[in-house]
């Protein structure tokens, strides 16, 4: 049945997919009328419904306005499960790139004009310092026991080895470390895939951008976050280590779904009760992959700092504003129906967005709310937002994570045919350094929706409030 036939408008920015068939709860999608018009017949709405059939789901099967077709869960999907009520954990609710996420650095000690003037050289130096693209490993080669340490320690592991300072950890989701991580169930293949990938960017939509603050919506909040004129945005995840953990556990969960009698609307939704041995093994291994990603972004941060110091002198510093996860499942406490419940919250292509006063928000930002970083495409802009109490009440403290694609990779490449993307970007004042020309063609600006439309919805819905818009002038792509 086409999803468009049964879609109820709840408000200006919220739509409901009422319960039907095996759905245990309704679905809810945040979108404007325009975004919903594009979505109406999209399979991603069926995926919102499918998620609603999983055991132990609480409240609603949610989707953010950057929703698009994913595997099992839609990208932009958020769902919480109650372990005490048979609630499940599903690798399809986390994704292949576990803890793919973004980290924002605020650069000080060098004038914007100077950095902008040297954007080409800076981009080239960054591409050299941070290996990007398929088939490129980093200089750091880890032994099996070191990978275990990374899997347990996350960004802390990197800081303890001199790649950054302890203050970096204060401004990361979970303090840069999934404390429950257990590398034990991580396969040998995952370890081999990850052994030389710490400090690398990867390919696809991953990037490293040097940006200028284009517009401030809340100058006071921006100042509190330390955002001045120049920022660096890092988008990468757990690389081959996390991909393999996902692959391995999809197989485990296929069997587990059968064993626990979980009816699957889509095989990619395979899951196990959170408290089962399979559920716990995945939770531990996923935590280790999360930590690999935190350590990866910490390593990249360190390389960026080295490049800045080399080019602009020791006074050029890059402070971590915040580091958020896009693809994770975590235990979090949320008030549901007037009572506090400890739930397993899946965010797949969604960002945590805790409001002011939440104890998980770093002390320096607690009065403001948690920074939410929303990257756009390489030719436009990214946003810094702050989480709200309303997000806490409506979406298990969650918000959007990006623009979402408009064109498939094949169509993007067709659209880029005969064009010189690097030149086009240069004409817009952006230096593009790409490890792969074809990769860059697949990531052209026109391939993405305008992230401003997505941000507009979450702001109007009250899930976040805007602080700043950042425009890139040097872009490194995998």
């Amino acid at each position, binding site marked *: 049945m086409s999803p468009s036939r049964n879609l109820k408008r709840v408000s200006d920015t919220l739509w409901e997919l009422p319960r039907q068939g095996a759905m245990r709860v309704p679905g809810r999608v945040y979108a404007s009328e325009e975004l919903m018009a594009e979505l109406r017949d999209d399979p991603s709405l069926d995926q919102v419904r499918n998620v609603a059939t999983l055991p132990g789901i609480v409240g609603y099967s949610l989707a953010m306005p950057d929703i698009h077709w994913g595997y099992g869960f839609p990208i932009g999907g958020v769902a919480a499960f109650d372990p005490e009520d048979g609630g499940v954990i599903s690798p399809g609710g986390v994704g292949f790139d576990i803890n793919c996420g973004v980290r924002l650095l605020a650069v000080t000690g060098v004038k914007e004009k100077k950095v902008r003037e040297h954007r080409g050289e800076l981009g080239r130096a960054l591409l050299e310092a941070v290996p990007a693209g398929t*088939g490129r490993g980093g200089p750091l080669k880890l032994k099996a026991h070191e990978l275990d340490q990374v899997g347990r320690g996350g960004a802390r592991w990197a800081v303890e080895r001199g790649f950054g300072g302890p203050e970096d950890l204060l401004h990361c989701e979970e303090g840069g470390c999934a404390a429950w991580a257990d590398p034990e169930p991580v396969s040998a293949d995952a370890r081999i895939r990850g052994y030389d990938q710490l400090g690398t960017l990867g390919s696809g939509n991953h990037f490293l951008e040097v940006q200028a603050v284009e517009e401030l919506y809340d100058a006071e909040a921006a100042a509190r976050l330390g955002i001045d004129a120049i920022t660096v945005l890092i988008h990468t995840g757990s690389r081959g280590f996390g991909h*393999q953990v996902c692959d391995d556990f999809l197989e485990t969960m296929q069997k587990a779904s059968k064993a626990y009698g979980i009816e699957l609307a889509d095989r990619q939704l395979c899951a196990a009760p959170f408290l089962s041995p399979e559920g716990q093994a995945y939770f531990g291994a996923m935590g280790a992959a999360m930590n690999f990603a935190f350590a990866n972004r910490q390593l990249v941060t360190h390389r960026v700092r080295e490049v800045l110091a080399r080019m602009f002198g020791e006074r050029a510093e890059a402070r971590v504003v915040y580091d958020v996860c896009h693809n994770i499942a975590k235990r979090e406490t949320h008030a549901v129906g007037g009572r506090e419940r400890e739930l397993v919250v899946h965010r797949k292509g969604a960002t945590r967005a805790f409001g002011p006063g939440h104890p998980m928000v770093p002390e320096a930002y607690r009065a403001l709310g948690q920074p939410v970083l929303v990257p756009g495409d390489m030719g436009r802009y990214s946003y810094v937002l702050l989480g709200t109490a309303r997000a806490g009440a409506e979406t298990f403290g969650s918000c959007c994570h990006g623009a979402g694609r408009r064109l498939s*990779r094949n169509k993007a490449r067709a659209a880029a045919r005969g064009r010189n993307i690097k030149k086009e970007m240069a004409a817009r004042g952006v230096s593009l350094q790409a490890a792969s020309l074809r990769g860059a063609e697949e990531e052209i600006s026109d391939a993405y929706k305008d992230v401003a439309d997505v941000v507009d919805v979450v702001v109007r819905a009250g899930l976040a409030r805007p602080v700043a818009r950042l425009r890139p002038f040097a872009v490194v792509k995998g």
Partner: protein
Amino acid sequence: MATHATPRWETFSHGADIGVRGFGPTREQAFEAAALALTGVITDPAQVRPSQRVEIACAGADEELLLYAWLNALITQMALRGMLFSRFEVSIAADALTGAAWGEPIDVARHRPAVEAKGATFTELRVRPGADGEWVAQCVIDV
């Protein structure tokens, strides 16, 4: 029954990612062609020299899970060995596949790899003979 000349492959669009589809007169050849499509996601397979052979074995409870396992085994081998493959051989007995892939280490300058394949998915996963008896083997790859 019509005879189908050579196995062939194509990629197809899927949201943020990309699908691979192999066609062949037999199920095995469709699997081999799908593997070539997987390489096609990353680079032009014609640029990959089939100079080293890698043995591959995997299992799956049904044909579709077997295709899923085969493509994932190839993705894992590409990542572990830093290789790309351009020639494949598959034999299937019940739920087990034994096969081989021939290729060479990635040469970034020559292969200009586009994206990295993260894993095969169950999305659009299909293995079946068409009305004309030609087999189709396909699924979406997360990149």
